[in-house]
């Protein structure tokens, strides 16, 4: 199990990696805040390397949306894993998250 982290990928891309849960959540929250505050242009958050997520992962997406809004940059989310999509569906978040159709 790799350690959870969020990092800058290619141009305008952020990648969330590992297990998003109650222990990894607080640090990821702060790391994402710093990365988004430094951004000047539109961001794509890639979720394909998330191994497993509880509701904490959905809360992180919402928190990053608030950060992006405050910074005045656009944020899109791509490759939402199945377990996150299930929680998003039950919690009525599918219409609220800025989900990008998977890029193939």
């Amino acid at each position, binding site marked *: 199990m790799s350690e959870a982290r969020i990092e800058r990928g290619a141009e305008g891309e952020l990648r969330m990696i590992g297990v998003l849960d109650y222990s990894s959540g607080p640090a990821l*929250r702060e790391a994402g805040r710093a990365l988004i505050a430094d951004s000047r242009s539109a961001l794509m958050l890639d979720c394909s390397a998330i191994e497993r997520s509880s509701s904490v992962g959905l809360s992180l997406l919402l928190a990053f949306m608030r950060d992006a809004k405050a910074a005045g940059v656009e944020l899109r989310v791509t490759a939402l894993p199945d377990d996150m999509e299930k929680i998003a569906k039950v919690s009525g978040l599918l219409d609220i998250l800025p989900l990008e159709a998977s890029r193939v």
Partner: protein
Amino acid sequence: MSACNDFAVELKGVTFKRGERSIFNDVDIAIPRGKVTAIMGPSGCGKTTLLRLIAAQLMPSRGEVWVAGNNLPSLSRSELFDMRKQMGVLFQSGALFTDLDVFENVAFPLRVHTKLPDEMIRDIVLMKLEAVGLRGAIELMPDELSGGMKRRVALARAIALDPQILMYDEPFAGQDPIAMGVLVRLIRLLNDALGITSIVVSHDLAETASIADYIYVVGDAQVLGQGTPAELMESNNPRIRQFMTGAADGPVPFHFPAPAYADDLLRGTDA
């Protein structure tokens, strides 16, 4: 490890006694992963005790209780504390904190078990209340809620930590028909949409048979029968038939054991 990973919970040869009286005597029960399993039986047959054994609130006198690959009686206190985070329980009474509003009731397990910042706790509380349809009730106090709404808030609280196993103790007791319908729908939705293993302890036959994938009927400290609702309805076992058809008399007699009625009456008060 547990013998079979298709089961989220397995009781093997479990005996539980209160004093000299056996509540369960050498009972085997296997709860399939990701399904709704009902534990049914007459009042007082030990259904709630069974839930408390699975939730590690009680330990068996003898036998093994396997939950998520761990035999509970062999775990340390701190391991049990971690195990309990994986299990949500909807208690019979709802058991909301009466001096906390709806938001703080749902936030409570997040504040106790996690170090999430307030902003994330708020997200998760809103998500869970949205799932049970009560996001609009966030500022209400428990005494401002109907009985059905209280159960739904308690359900939101039970799923706050995303448990793998969700246990319901008499979820339908004392609910009006609409509230029952809402609860049935929610139990099924949470089970199917989130892949949760659901255990419903109940004596409400119609509602329980309508949502259970599999039913255990317990009584007399034993498992009297098991199967899908349809299989149990067809059972030839007279004890199962009596329970499934709600007959007042049968192998479980209507009358509590008593001396012959005529003797009792005609004896007068000279005893």
